């Protein structure tokens, strides 16, 4: 589940005795009339890799800047290790930040950049050079210590920024869209490097990103944000398989949403009436719903099977016509048009090298899924 932490038992958020490293207590931040953060409470635990995920303008960067001390909450409290941070200026906080633009000092060499924070700490002068070397080794920058930031590549700059923010061994490292400026291949390599470094140093990481794949890859828990509020906090797999709302379901990965009215069958099994003349969808609701509750049935494309004959085994089956096919190499996504005009996406893995497609445009097909494949959302 949390393979980036090396053991599956890392889940301090499930232990009520565990004290959180960071606590947001009903924090609100307003800029003039604009409410950037709206009455938000979260707990972040020691050694977590915590991702703040959301579209631009959702308040995730403001949240991080409040942790660094560049913004102060209008209302509420932020506690770090149980201490209220309101009166602590950025230079006195045990946090360090890696900036989106990296913010490397252009007039200083790579080694001087890394030593910058150490020179302003109480570390004895004799130990600084050793610590700088250690950070250069950790980020594989040994040959570049004497270079200026404009003499190295983008990926190397990103590692300098990381080394500089880790040099003071902060309790908490804040990463603001740290990989945004890198190209896709480099970004994926760097994600694993970040996880590796987080594990080696045992530092708590809070990362801000709008890239859901990035958040899923690196984070132990993800907080999905929208308009200054937290919509859901969960581990990547729970977020993907058990979204609590249409917003989260739609934001994380691809999903089919079918609108309808619920009718409970008992034991959490629920029928969803979604179109005239179609059999109701049978799904599992998180709790028993009242009859007639408006809801969405949400199902991931890879959990929808596509076949030419009606399958006997699956609880749900609907008929449609292939509208479009997206061939992505490893998988194909079929866009199937149902009788009521709705498009449902179904994914099939291309396990064999195809000489001939099983289905082609305009083919009549059956889509099917089990009664536990999808989730029923009421928000």
């Amino acid at each position, binding site marked *: 589940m949390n393979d980036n932490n090396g053991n599956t038992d890392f889940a301090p958020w499930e232990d009520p005795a565990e004290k959180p490293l960071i606590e947001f207590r009903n924090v609100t931040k307003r800029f003039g009339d604009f409410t950037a953060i709206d009455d938000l409470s979260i707990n972040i635990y020691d050694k977590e890799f915590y991702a703040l995920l959301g579209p631009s303008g959702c308040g995730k960067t403001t949240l991080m800047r409040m942790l660094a001390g560049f913004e102060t909450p209008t209302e509420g409290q932020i506690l770090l290790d149980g201490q209220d941070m309101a009166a602590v200026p950025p*230079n006195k906080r045990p946090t360090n930040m890696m*900036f989106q*633009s990296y*913010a490397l000092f252009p007039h200083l060499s790579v080694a001087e950049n890394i030593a910058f924070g150490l020179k*302003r700490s109480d570390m004895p002068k004799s130990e600084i050079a050793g610590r700088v070397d250690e950070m250069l080794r950790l980020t594989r920058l040994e040959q570049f210590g004497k270079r200026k930031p*404009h003499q190295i*590549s983008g990926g190397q700059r990103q590692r300098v920024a990381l080394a500089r923010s880790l040099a003071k061994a902060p309790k908490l490292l804040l990463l603001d869209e740290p990989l945004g400026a890198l190209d896709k291949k480099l970004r994926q390599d760097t994600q694993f490097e970040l996880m590796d470094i987080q594990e080696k140093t045992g530092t708590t990481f809070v990362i801000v990103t709008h890239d859901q794949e990035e958040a899923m890859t690196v984070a132990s828990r993800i907080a999905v944000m929208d308009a200054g509020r937290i919509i859901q906090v969960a581990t990547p797999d729970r977020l993907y398989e058990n979204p609590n709302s249409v917003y989260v379901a739609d934001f994380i990965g691809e999903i089919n949403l079918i609108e309808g009215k619920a009718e409970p069958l008992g034991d959490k099994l629920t029928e969803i009436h979604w179109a005239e003349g179609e059999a109701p969808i049978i799904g599992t609701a998180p709790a028993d719903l009242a009859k007639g509750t408006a809801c969405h049935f949400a199902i991931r494309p890879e959990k929808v099977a596509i076949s030419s004959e009606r399958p006997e085994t699956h609880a749900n089956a609907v008929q449609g016509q292939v509208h479009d096919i997206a061939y992505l190499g490893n998988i194909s996504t079929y866009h199937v048009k149902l009788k009521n005009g709705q498009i449902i996406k179904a994914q099939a893995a291309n396990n064999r090298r195809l000489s001939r497609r099983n289905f082609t445009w305009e083919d009549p097909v059956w889509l099917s899924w089990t009664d536990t494949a999808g989730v029923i959302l009421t928000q």
Partner: protein
Amino acid sequence: MRRFTWFNATALTFGFAFLYLPMLILITYSFNESRLVTVWAGFSTKWYGVLLHDKAFLSAAWITLKVAVMSSTFAAILGTMAAYALVRGGRFRGRTLFSGMIYAPLVMPDVITGLSLLLLFIAIGMDRGVTTIVLAHTTFSMCFVSVVVSSRLATFDQSLEEAALDLGCTPFDAFRSVTLPIIAPAVISGWLLAFTLSLDDLVISSFTTGPSSTTLPIKIYSAVRLGVSPEINALSSIMILIVTVGVIAASLVSKRSIALQKADEQKALQQ
């Protein structure tokens, strides 16, 4: 590709002649043997020798230099502070008014600036001399520094300062160890601008000068009223030389730093 035509050549010639012919004539006549400025009597450097022994001119030159160095230094400090406050201060009440007031002296006629300063110095009973000239020059040249520095600060990545704070700097330490080294070229070019403005200012200096503090422009102006002498031609030629050398040096320095940076980036790309 632009082609060379007779029209272009003529326009270029007239344009440059308009700009540089007066100076060329001045320099030529500074090497004139004759005492009469407009009559050519052979080549000589004797007026430069005379100039070197003219105590009045030398002391005026010394005063001018002192005033220029002091006022441009004060202007660089105050102008940088003003620019920093205006660009970084956020949106405080009356910010527009303040920035307007900083830049107003740019377009204010020198006569008005000079006169108002004179009235101020009289009102507070300040004896006029080098101090008052320095104050006056600082006042009008700091806005030029402020313009240069604030345009640099506007393109300055503010996260650099935040990074410095984040790494343990006090706000002052962040300014000293990060902001200042990065904006230093702008501060220096602001200083040079203030220096040249102070060097050749006549109007404001003559309002705020005292009996023992005649600057070079004032000295030249009053000497010319008695008739142009070859000595003044020689002095002006020296000033032209100094300014030319300064401008060429400044452009060479900036070209070199750009070339160095390009070479560095090339090096980075190759690895």
